[in-house]
């Protein structure tokens, strides 16, 4: 809403939870929120909705919040746009935060979009950099735009709150401070189940094997340079030896070598692992936007001119069919030197990460 912006104070973070478990992204955003709040000399506050979620407030304080707004009601057991939008919209209208961050998850994005229209304020999607102009109390949310071709800072001068969604793993969480506490503010929701239009009938969890690239710490990804199923299997073996999750470029997915759930890039997963190994991937912009924030990128490619070498930290110009098996061998040797235990035995890392 176009409002008297001086009425709005404080930085809020939406604390998404599922089945009573807080998602990591909310805890990460408390770190970013705390930084902004300290600069603005205001509180950073968590917003927690759900059924029986009150015990989670401790964890939110320990992760850096000064205050938590809680609405604990059976009607909020599962995420639904209509209930969550109403609850969050009412909180915003009553307590007037100046900045409000959400994790860019399926539900976080859905909620932020609905709330932005409900209270008529600005919203920046998939923010990767955050800062604030303290004097003007202006939130500077920057994000890649146009398929990653350019970075843009989005500002919202006359409306409050200034809202943004942020992808998981973009921000590092603070180390939890055990025993840290703060103020709990409880509110209620006025909706009744019989007035609602939507109902969550069922949540079908994909089998344990499901690929969770977004959460992976190590990813080994195969590109079209591996040629066929045999080459792909060779990269899968390396992934297994490295305890890594296996990823792929779009061309590999389209060639039918693996499912879309493994695709990294603009139309696949955006990943931020600690280590990303690209094997036979050329490094098209649509691939790069999905992995360029990895902490350590190692590229293996036979073409010295491949653009992936621009994005990588280390490059190995070599035939993947020679060097990948050697690397697999090296990892097997190196990691088996660890005291034998369940950790080194575990091979599940290839296909799953939790």
């Amino acid at each position: 809403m176009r409002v008297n912006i001086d009425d709005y104070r404080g930085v809020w973070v939406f604390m998404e939870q599922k089945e009573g478990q807080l998602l990591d992204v909310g805890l990460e955003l408390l770190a970013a929120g705390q930084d902004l709040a300290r600069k603005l000399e205001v509180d950073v506050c968590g917003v927690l909705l759900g059924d029986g979620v009150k015990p989670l407030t401790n964890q939110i304080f320990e992760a850096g919040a000064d205050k938590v707004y809680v609405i604990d009601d059976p009607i909020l057991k599962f995420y639904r746009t209509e209930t969550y939008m109403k609850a969050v919209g009412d909180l915003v209208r009553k307590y007037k935060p100046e900045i409000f961050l959400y994790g860019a998850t399926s539900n976080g994005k859905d909620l932020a979009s609905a709330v932005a229209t409900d209270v008529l304020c600005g919203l920046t999607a998939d923010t990767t950099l955050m800062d604030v102009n303290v004097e003007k109390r202006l939130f500077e949310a920057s994000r890649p735009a146009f398929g990653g071709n350019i970075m843009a800072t989005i500002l919202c001068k006359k409306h409050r709150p200034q809202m943004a969604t942020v992808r998981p793993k973009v921000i590092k969480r603070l180390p939890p401070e055990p025993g840290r506490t703060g103020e709990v503010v409880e509110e209620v929701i006025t909706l009744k189940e019989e007035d609602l239009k939507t109902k969550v009938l069922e949540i079908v969890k994909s089998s344990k094997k499901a690929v969770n690239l977004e959460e992976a710490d190590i990813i080994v990804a195969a590109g079209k340079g591996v040629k066929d199923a045999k080459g792909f299997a060779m990269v899968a073996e390396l992934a297994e030896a490295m305890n890594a999750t296996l990823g792929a470029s779009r061309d590999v997915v389209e060639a039918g070598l693996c499912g879309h759930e493994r695709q990294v890039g603009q139309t696949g997963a955006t990943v931020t692992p600690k280590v990303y190994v690209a094997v036979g991937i050329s490094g098209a912009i649509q691939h790069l936007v999905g992995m360029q924030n990895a902490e350590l990128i190692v590229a293996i490619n036979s073409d010295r001119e491949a653009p992936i070498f621009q994005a990588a930290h280390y490059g190995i110009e070599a035939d993947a069919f020679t060097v990948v098996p050697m690397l697999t061998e090296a990892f097997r040797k190196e990691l088996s030197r660890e005291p034998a235990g369940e950790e080194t035995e575990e091979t599940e890392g290839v296909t799953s990460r939790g």
Partner: protein
Amino acid sequence: MHILVCIKQVPDTKIIKVNPKTNTLDRSSAPAILNPYDAHAVEEAVRLRKIYGGKVTVLSMGPPQARNAIRKCVEIGADEGILISDRRFAGADTLATSYALFKAVEKIQKTDGVDLILCGKHAIDGDTGQTGPGVARRLGIPPLTCVIRVEDVDVENRTLKVHRKVEEGYEVIASTLPSLLTVEKEINEVSWAPLPNMIRAARYEPSVWNVDDLDDVDIKQLGLKGSPTIVGKMWPPEKSKGAKMISGDPADQTVAVMKIFMKEQELFTKAGRKN
């Protein structure tokens, strides 16, 4: 059943170039295409029409050239197209865009009724996915985002069921008609246009409405004026210095890269497990 699909014409971000002097996009460098996700929304609407009967109308806001994107939708099988085009819409962010589309939907509702609205997951030039839910909020109908399957549309009883993709799998949601769905690309494969559609599309002229054709429009909520967000600065993403190349024959390279990896030995022994 009358299905409305909101679509957008976008520059092909694969080809677009950035002007290094001004740090703005050189739009002339990229051809304008139908937003790829919207093609899936149109395809799904056509599929539903085949099952439940009715009509598929596409709605777009954009410059006059966006008629081409609407023609593309006719190729896929849409029956009608409406373009809202006016200088007063220009510079709209997602909030202002959702207002303009909402006003157009209201007008369409008056004459035709609307049972279902479909949108693509997001537009590849903005990557926000915020416009669809915004339109739903303004219409006061349920937004269902991340849809990967539509089933059990019951036109009589005004209900439907969808599968909604979430991180851990999918949710089965029951909702009421009308609802607004934003669809993921997994929902279908966009099929090749049959020849008769192509012929029809080539000659098709969508209806074009300007602001004055819409009812009760609050001009202040349109375009740049109605947009809370503005773009501050733009800059090219940091060009990395490029990789440090590891030299030698493959055996040397393996040894050298292992040294780099083994600085993080603990990571490799612990990975694959939740921390």
